[in-house]
């Protein structure tokens, strides 16, 4: 985590509102100013206006199955404790003692009915309630304990076993926040009543890229695959990169969410149905759990990546668990955790269907890990190409020239992509690729959140 932010102060004459105003006018043209990728003022405003306001993903219910289980997680840069209390309810608590701010929880996981501060010994229940302190009758006879509970997220909700919280007392419900994205998430996660759960804790690694770049890339960047990940096709562990964009659909959902579908049948033949899941997995699916249109999407145009605003994305693709073995389909939910201006930690969970036997789960894990992990043969190249934007943002020259990055792909006059007016699902469907409607929509929503409280 960066503590010294002096390198990231805006240049002379640059003010937050000016950058945002320029972003607004540039976005109209499909452009994004470099300034927003490594600027301390932008970063601080993101923490306040986006991460302290949005519904932020925290983990999976199955990571804290028992009463007393807890996780240490993040909302933006804030450390929070996600607990399951004695009644089985889930709480999201600020991870510091109300007395003097000492961190209460130093581990990633654990099981405790209460948290005792190691400094002076204030004690809090795992629902956040203040329940005591040493020498209470001599020291705090008059203390109104309810004023000294841990800070508790006002809204905590789960959907498909995924825990989200919002720190905004006026937040909409999670379902209203997700809107049409919830429909696509059901298509991904609700093909079987047993659902999905992570196979272990997240793989975590520091990337010197901006969190927005991860969100925007997984929101619908099919265009980078053939170049950034070209090696994977060259060594014959994946195919179809050259035609990928001709078979893609960008589903753009209000609220900054997006999904990138692909016509697997056209790309990979009739076995491409439903993400190329092999018959021994597909036989368990009950597509009737989904409405007819969603069934159609899952069969013919399943999304392989997507982003839930602000910093949660998923990936579902296939590859061999080891070269030469038949392909397995893998699913990863991943979070772009902002750690400082132009820096993030990538957290990635790999999921299994709960009906899977041990071998099926292990194959899926191995295939996913080989592709997308701190050592993944796809992912390692992303971690390097994403280092560029923050470095450009720190460039005096780039800022002096009022440089913007290009997100015009697929706009009118640029290419073959058009809005599909026959689309009856949520949001908009733009087809075919290549195009960047998801990226433009992501930054437009980002701007709307940044500007709303800032003017």
């Amino acid at each position: 985590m960066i503590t010294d932010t002096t390198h990231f102060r805006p240049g002379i004459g640059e003010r937050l509102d000016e950058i945002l105003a320029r972003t607004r006018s540039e976005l109209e043209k499909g452009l994004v100013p470099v300034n927003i990728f490594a600027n301390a003022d932008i970063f601080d405003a993101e923490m306040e206006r986006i991460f302290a306001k949005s519904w932020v993903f925290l983990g999976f219910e199955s990571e804290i199955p028992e009463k007393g289980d807890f996780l240490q997680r993040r909302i933006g840069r804030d450390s929070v404790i996600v607990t399951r209390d004695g009644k089985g309810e889930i709480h999201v608590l600020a991870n510091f003692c109300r007395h003097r701010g000492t961190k209460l929880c130093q581990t990633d996981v654990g099981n405790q009915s209460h948290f005792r501060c190691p400094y002076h010994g204030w004690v809090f229940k795992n629902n956040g309630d203040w329940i005591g302190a040493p020498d209470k009758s001599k020291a705090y006879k008059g203390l109104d304990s309810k004023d000294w509970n841990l800070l508790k997220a006002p809204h905590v909700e789960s959907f498909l076993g995924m825990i989200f919280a919002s720190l905004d007392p006026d937040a909409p419900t999670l379902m209203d926040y997700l809107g049409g994205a919830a429909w696509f998430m059901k298509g991904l996660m609700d093909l079987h009543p047993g659902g999905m759960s992570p196979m272990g804790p997240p793989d975590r690694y520091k990337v010197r890229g901006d969190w927005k770049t991860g969100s925007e890339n997984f929101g619908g960047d099919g265009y980078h695959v053939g170049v950034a990940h070209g090696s994977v096709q060259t060594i014959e562990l994946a195919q179809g990169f050259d035609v990928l964009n001709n078979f893609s659909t960008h589903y753009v959902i209000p609220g900054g969410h997006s999904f990138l579908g692909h016509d697997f049948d056209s790309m990979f033949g009739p076995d491409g149905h439903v993400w190329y899941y092999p018959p021994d997995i597909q036989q368990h699916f009950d597509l009737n759990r989904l409405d007819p249109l969603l069934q159609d999407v899952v069969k013919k145009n399943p999304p392989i990546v997507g982003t839930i605003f602000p910093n949660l994305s998923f990936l579902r693709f296939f590859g061999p668990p080891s070269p030469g073995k038949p392909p397995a389909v893998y699913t990863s939910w991943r979070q772009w955790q902002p750690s400082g201006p132009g820096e993030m930690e990538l957290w990635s969970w790999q999921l299994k269907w709960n009906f899977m036997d041990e071998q099926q789960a292990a194959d899926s894990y191995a295939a996913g890990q080989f592709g997308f992990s701190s050592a993944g043969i796809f992912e390692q190249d992303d971690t390097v190409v994403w280092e560029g934007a923050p470095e450009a943002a720190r460039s005096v020259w780039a800022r002096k020239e009022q440089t913007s990055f290009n997100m015009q792909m697929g706009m009118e006059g640029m290419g073959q992509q058009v809005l599909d007016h026959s689309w009856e699902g949520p949001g908009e469907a733009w087809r075919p690729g290549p195009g960047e409607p998801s990226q433009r929509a992501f930054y437009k929503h980002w701007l709307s959140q940044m500007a709303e409280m800032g003017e």
Partner: protein
Amino acid sequence: MNKISADVEFAIRQFLGLEAMLLDNGRLEEWVGLLDEAILYEIPLRISARKREDEFPRGAFRMHEDMAMIRKRLERMGTAENWAEDPASRTVRTVGSIFVEADEGEGIFRVHSALSLYRQRAIDRAYEWIPARRIDLIRFGDNGECRLVRRTVILAETILQTPNLAIFL
């Protein structure tokens, strides 16, 4: 447990030194030649937990690779599209605290070592340091040559500070 002979210990120390030299000099094909065909190269995920035995959740890895996967990685490194290592990192690894713990039978020895790996990528910028312990199974063959049968890398970090593991540890 049989006593570890000086010959075995010397051969293992030489083997680990040779391996480190080959890896730092990018002589990966020769390094793969030091691996047993049944190699398992694994890096378990580590978390912060109160009890040491809870730091390594079962079945969770950053890498868990057989020979076919390792060979594929080398093939990938040989393409012109290996952006994570373009150019290859400059690494200097120190392998120390070598401890030949046990004779596991059939000429296989359990060997502990500490790895301190300096990695500098691309241009002269912030360097990266990857500290780890390794638990190896090394076969000491009848011909006096060693082969790596299994490597378990125990990273000191729970959140990896280098952006990728595009290098072997």
